[in-house]
């Protein structure tokens, strides 16, 4: 554990934009009300403003006269190991980096980015929770945090090909589009692979999967280590370059979409003409252009609601496409949760929180907000386009013994395809 490493990173992370944001924060507390962990527990330390306090403190002590005077007079103490240990629980266990807090900040501060900066410092000093650290290491060593090795990948693709009677093109030369599944789908929801295959084939997409770029999740975004982020991004982008594809499609994964679509450009070389999209965006394009057609009212019974994922809908902007699907499949049974779209609450399992066993009580507490939303709308089915959210929902449905069906959007679309 090296406290100075963390302080150095906090200082390094504090460029002009971050410094301006730290100075601009008025401590109004509106971010607290936006945070599902704070709302669920009422613990003041879970307020987003407190979660980036270490960054502010390091900045103040290094760059401001007031901070230096407070240090010299002993009014304030330098960031120490105890602080790092304490903040590790705030920013890894009680934050999904969902960035809902940034939406409500009257000063327009990108709070999620600041908290991610704290994670980066903690990572440099060795304060990543062990469960998460082990999963990150597994991804670095084996290519997947869930144990999808080259051999397992091949076996799962064969399994889906055989049993769902589809043909997933592997390393197909001349393909335009590279589709990269998440290992949650590969291991836990293999029917997603078949569903997405059916959609792409129905649309006549010239696509492939790659044995080199075979894992879309990027746990480097969870531990905060920039070298891990880059290494994992490079594996995907090198695979895409080698295949010569024009487009990457991220399947039902939220943070991986955020990483590839938005963050990658600041971290690694992304081929200039490479388009990066999410399967939800692609489904929307197919529907608008008539490349696929769906059976109207195919799921028009009961009450169905849609869970907006933080990284796909709030950050990614794919808000209209799921509604487009619901308008066709469930025009009468679809009901919106409140709040919804970009304002929706996180499921509570994102940002690596679901990986950390010690964070389970907090994860369940945060999900209770989601339960309230679902109960209020009276839904018997909740649909989403993120496999990590789906894993959290499935786990919580079991934990709370709820009578609720959890479904993937691609699966619904595939089941309703007009052939």
């Amino acid at each position: 554990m090296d406290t100075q490493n963390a302080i150095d990173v906090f200082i390094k992370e504090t460029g002009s934009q971050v410094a301006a944001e730290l100075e601009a924060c008025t401590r109004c507390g509106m971010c607290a009300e936006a945070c599902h962990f704070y709302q669920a527990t009422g613990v003041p330390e879970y307020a987003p403003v407190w979660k980036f306090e270490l960054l502010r403190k390091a900045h103040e002590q290094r760059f401001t006269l007031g901070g230096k005077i407070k240090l010299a007079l002993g009014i304030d103490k330098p960031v120490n190991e105890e602080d790092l240990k304490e903040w590790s629980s705030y920013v890894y266990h009680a934050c999904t980096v969902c960035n809902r807090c940034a939406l409500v900040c009257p000063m327009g501060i990108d709070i999620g980015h600041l908290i991610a900066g704290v994670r980066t410092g903690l990572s440099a000093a060795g304060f990543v929770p062990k469960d998460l650290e082990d999963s990150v290491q597994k991804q670095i060593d084996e290519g997947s945090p869930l144990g999808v090795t080259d051999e397992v990948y091949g076996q799962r693709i064969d399994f889906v090909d055989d049993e769902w009677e589809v043909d997933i093109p592997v390393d197909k030369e001349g393909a335009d589009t590279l589709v990269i599944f998440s290992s949650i789908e590969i291991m836990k929801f293999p029917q997603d692979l078949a569903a997405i295959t059916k959609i792409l084939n129905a649309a006549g997409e010239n696509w492939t999967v790659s044995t080199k770029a075979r894992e879309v999740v990027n746990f480097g975004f969870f531990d905060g280590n920039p070298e891990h982020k880059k290494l994992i991004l490079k594996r995907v982008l090198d695979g895409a370059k080698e295949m010569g594809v024009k487009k990457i499609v991220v399947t039902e994964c939220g943070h991986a979409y955020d990483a590839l679509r938005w963050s990658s450009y600041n971290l690694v070389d992304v081929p200039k003409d490479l388009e990066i999209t999410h399967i939800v965006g692609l489904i929307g394009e197919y529907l608008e252009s008539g490349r696929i057609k769906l059976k109207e009212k195919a799921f028009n019974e009961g009450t169905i609601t849609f869970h907006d994922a933080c990284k796909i809908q709030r950050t990614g902007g794919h808000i209209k496409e799921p509604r487009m699907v619901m308008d066709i499949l469930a025009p009468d049974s679809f009901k919106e949760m409140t709040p919804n779209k970009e304002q929706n609450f996180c499921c509570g399992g994102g940002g690596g929180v679901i990986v950390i066993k010690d964070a389970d009580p907090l994860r369940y507490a945060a999900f209770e907000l989601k339960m309230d939303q679902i109960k209020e709308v009276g839904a018997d089915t909740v649909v989403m386009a993120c496999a990590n959210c789906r894993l959290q929902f499935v786990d919580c449905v079991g934990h709370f013994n709820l009578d609720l069906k959890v479904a993937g959007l691609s699966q619904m679309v595939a089941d309703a395809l007009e052939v």
Partner: protein
Amino acid sequence: MTASFTLTPVEKGIMRCIHTSKFSHEDVRSLANFLADYHGKLLIDLSETTSEDCAKQLKQFRPMMPTAAIIGVDLDPAALEIPDSYYVHEVRHFQSEEQALAWLREQ
């Protein structure tokens, strides 16, 4: 056509899944969908299956399984091994139904 597995309730929170004959593609898909939806524990009875089909299907279904106890077959423990990960549930092999249910109730 009859499905190659049947699901019956044992008690609150535990279902019995009996594998009765060779899996068809449709059976595999149905079971995968069931496992995606099911949130309880499973008592898996493999007494009426062939060892070959059992080994093949166990390997593929293992990552999707909830907490489960397997009975009715002599099983190589390696068939249940899976890389440790946060999404994985515990699955154990037992010689008797009594032992299996006692363990499931504790989970």
